[in-house]
């Protein structure tokens, strides 16, 4: 699709103003590199652990229906229960320690502290 577009679109040499990064019409101030909120990173860590546990539990969950029919569901049920329990423990830990509080994190992070 990009190739078809290449045949159709005009080729003009862009002026320096045009290729400037868009900052509401003004010339860009400073570098686009911003020291971003470390909260994003903590959330990503919590995410990856949850994600991995989920990938691990899929094969067990698939077996549950047949196990119920055969009357051998107890093992899988406790497996799922353990899995949920571990995720809940992790979630409660992060919640209690304030890792999920976005606003508090922003107010404590470096740029805000420096200005105060």
């Amino acid at each position, binding site marked *: 699709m990009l190739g078809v577009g290449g045949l159709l679109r005009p080729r003009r040499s862009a002026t320096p103003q045009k290729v400037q990064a868009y900052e509401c019409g003004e010339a860009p101030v400073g570098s686009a590199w911003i020291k971003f909120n*470390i909260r994003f990173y903590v959330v990503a*860590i919590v995410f*990856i652990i949850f*994600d991995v546990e989920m*990938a691990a539990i*899929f*094969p*067990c969950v698939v077996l549950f229906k047949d196990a119920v029919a055969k009357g051998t569901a107890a093992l899988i049920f406790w497996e799922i229960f353990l899995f949920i329990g571990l995720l809940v423990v992790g979630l409660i830990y*992060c919640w209690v320690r304030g890792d999920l509080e976005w606003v508090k994190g922003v107010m404590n992070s470096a740029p805000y502290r420096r200005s105060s």
Partner: protein
Amino acid sequence: MKLVLFLSELLTVASAFVVALHPNVLYASIFLLFTFLGVAVMFVFAGADFIAGAQVVVYVGGVTILILFAIMLTQWLYQMRLRDVGNKLVVPIAVIGLGLVPFLYKGLHQLADFVSKAPPPNLAAFSGSPKTTAIGEALLSSYLLPFEGITILLLGALVGAVWLARPK
């Protein structure tokens, strides 16, 4: 169809070269994403469809994002500091390492020939058979203890990593 596998093997190795040798860590991590995808395709062709899915979910959706976040957090982008000139020994290490590949391969070749001589009886049916239930049964029987251990390890990793990364 072998062509698709061959191309994805090429993609895997080519992007692994970039990962190992590109001076820019950002580019290396992006090509790591392609390596993961190529390896996932190889998994599919080896009859490991669920593992391929897990590979994409965990690596592409999780680890790559985490690495990109870490690079954004610790590097001054678009500046020279991103250039990881690294060790002065890059070239010798690469030459010696790649020089060892033929020897490594000679051993592997004999191993592969040995294994190929006595193929398992159900090799042809293996790729099509459903894997998710089989993996689940294995996880709940002979691999139950390691599986529980890893689940608990993951909880420990969560607590530890969050504690380490937490802003003061």
